[in-house]
C-alpha cells in the first residue's frame, strides 16, 4: 500500500510538471496554430535563470529559491513574449517556417546554455524541508512532490479563472474556436497571441524550476526530455483545452510511474506511448479538444 501511495504521489508530481509545460503548448497551438518546439528551451532557460539568480542572492535556501524562481519565471515570460513578437509574428499562416524557426531556436538556446554554463548538471537550491519527507498512509513522501502538485493546481485554477473571468480570457477562448471571427469582431487578436506566449513561457519556466527541485539539479537536456512528454500530453488532452491537458498530464505521470514499478523499469515511457496510440485510435481529436476551459 505504501509503495502504491508513493508511486501515486510521485506520478502526480511528474504530471504536475507535464501539465505546466503542456498547458502553454496547448493554448499556443489552440489559439495560434503554432507548434512551438522552442517551448522546451524555455523550461531549460527558466531553470538556469533560477539557478543563476540563486547564486547571486543571499539568505536561506528557501528565500533564495523563492526570489530566484520569481526571476526565472519572469525570464521565461519575457523571452517567450519576445519570441512571439520577433520570430513568430512575421510567420503567421506559414506553419512550415514556424516549425523550422522554433526547432532552430530550441537548438540555439540549448547550445547557448551549454556554452555559458557547460554540459554538467548544476546543483539546484532546494530547501531542506522540501527534501524531508511526510508520511502519508505509511509512505514517506518527499515534500517537494506536494510543492509540485500544489503549484500545478494553483496554475490550473489561475488559468481557469483567467480564461473564465477576464476579457483576454474570453478572447483566448473564442480565438481557440475561431480566430478569424474574433478579428471580425474588431479585436486585435495579436495582443492575445503575445499574452498567451508569455503565459506559456512563465508556466514552462515554472516547470523548469520545479524540475530542478524534483531532480535536485539542472542540466541542459532537461527541457527537451520534458517537452517530449508534454507534446504527448497535449495530443491526448486535445489542443486548446486546459482541462483536457490537466487530465492527460495526470494520466501520463501516473501510468509512467506504475508501469515502471509494476511492469518493468523503463516500460513507463512505452506505456505512455501505448496510451497515446489508444487515445489516437479511439478519440483522435483528444479528450477535450478546442475548448479552452
Amino acid at each position, binding site marked *: 500500500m505504501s509503495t502504491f501511495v508513493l508511486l501515486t504521489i510521485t506520478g502526480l508530481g511528474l504530471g504536475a510538471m507535464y501539465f505546466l509545460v503542456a498547458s502553454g503548448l496547448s493554448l499556443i497551438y489552440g489559439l495560434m496554430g503554432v507548434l512551438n518546439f522552442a517551448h522546451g528551451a524555455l523550461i531549460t532557460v527558466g531553470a538556469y535563470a533560477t539557478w543563476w539568480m540563486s547564486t547571486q542572492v543571499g539568505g536561506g535556501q528557501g528565500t533564495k529559491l523563492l526570489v530566484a524562481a520569481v526571476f526565472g519565471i519572469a525570464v521565461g515570460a519575457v523571452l517567450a513574449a519576445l519570441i512571439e513578437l520577433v520570430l513568430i509574428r512575421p510567420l503567421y499562416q506559414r506553419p512550415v517556417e514556424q516549425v523550422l524557426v522554433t526547432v532552430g531556436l530550441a537548438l540555439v538556446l540549448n547550445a547557448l546554455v551549454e556554452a555559458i554554463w557547460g554540459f554538467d548538471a548544476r546543483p539546484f537550491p532546494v530547501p531542506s524541508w522540501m527534501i524531508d519527507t511526510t508520511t502519508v498512509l505509511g509512505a514517506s513522501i518527499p515534500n517537494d512532490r506536494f510543492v509540485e502538485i500544489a503549484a500545478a493546481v494553483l496554475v490550473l485554477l489561475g488559468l481557469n479563472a483567467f480564461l473564465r473571468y477576464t476579457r483576454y480570457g474570453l478572447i483566448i477562448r473564442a480565438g481557440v*474556436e475561431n480566430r478569424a471571427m474574433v478579428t471580425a469582431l474588431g479585436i486585435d487578436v495579436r495582443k492575445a497571441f503575445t499574452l498567451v506566449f508569455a503565459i506559456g513561457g512563465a508556466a514552462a519556466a515554472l516547470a523548469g524550476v520545479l524540475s530542478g527541485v524534483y531532480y535536485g539539479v539542472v542540466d541542459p537536456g532537461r527541457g527537451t526530455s520534458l517537452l517530449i512528454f508534454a507534446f504527448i500530453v497535449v495530443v491526448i488532452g486535445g489542443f486548446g483545452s486546459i482541462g483536457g491537458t490537466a487530465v492527460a498530464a495526470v494520466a501520463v505521470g501516473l501510468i509512467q510511474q506504475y508501469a515502471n514499478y509494476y511492469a518493468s523499469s523503463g516500460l513507463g515511457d512505452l506505456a505512455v506511448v501505448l496510451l497515446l496510440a489508444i487515445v489516437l485510435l479511439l478519440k483522435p481529436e483528444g479528450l477535450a479538444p478546442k475548448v479552452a476551459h
Partner: protein
Amino acid sequence: MALLRVQDLNVHLGESHILQGVSFEVPEGGVTALLGRNGVGKTTTLRAMMGLVPRRGTVSLAGEELTRLPTHAIVRRGVGYVPEDRDVFAGLSVDENLRLAERGGTPRYELVYELFPELKIRGAQKAGTLSGGQQQMVAIARALLNDNPVLLVDEPTKGLAPLLVTEVAAALERAAELTTVLLVEQNLAVVARVAQQVVVLDMGRVVHTGTAAELLGDPAKVRSLLGVHGGSH
C-alpha cells in the same frame, strides 16, 4: 452620396480568379442587396471587403481607404460583419458571445434584446446548443451591439424556417433604420421586403446595378440575371 465604395476588387484563391474587378457603391442608409447565382463571388466580396481574404483593389468608407487596414481595424472603423455560417463561438455562452463583440462606448443591449428577446432568456446557454435560427440572432446581435455605420450581412436567412426568416427580415428592417446594410441574400422575398438597391454579380463581375423594385418587377430580368423565376412579391 456613396457611403461605401468598392473599386476594382480582385481576389485569387489558388488558381481561380474569383473576383474580377468588382466595383460598386453603397448609398448611405437603407439596404443594398448583393445578388447572384451560387458561386459567383458574393460571399468572397464581403470577405474581401473585411480583409479576410487576400485581395487587390480598394474599399473606402466615407472616403477613407480601408484596404490597407487589418480586419480588426476595418471593424473598428465601423464596418460590422455577420458571416454566412454565423460563426458563433459554440463553447461560449450567448452572453459571452455578445460581451466579446463590445467595442467601447455604450453597447446597444436594449436594441438587441428588443429585436431578439430570446437572447436575454438564453444568456447563460452555450451558443453551440442553440438552433440555427437562434445562432443567427446571436450573429446579427453581435454586429448590432455597436454603433456601426455599415453592416455587411451574408445570407442571414440561409437554412432558416419560414417563421424565423420573417423575424430575421424584421430585424434587418429595424437595423436599416439605424445603419446602412449591404446584404447578401438568396431569398428574393426578403430582398423585396428590405432592400432598396441591388447589385448583381455574375462570374466575379458586377453585371447589374439599380433599384430592387425595378429588378424584382421584371421577371425576365430576374430569370436572366439570377437564374430563378421572378415573382418574389
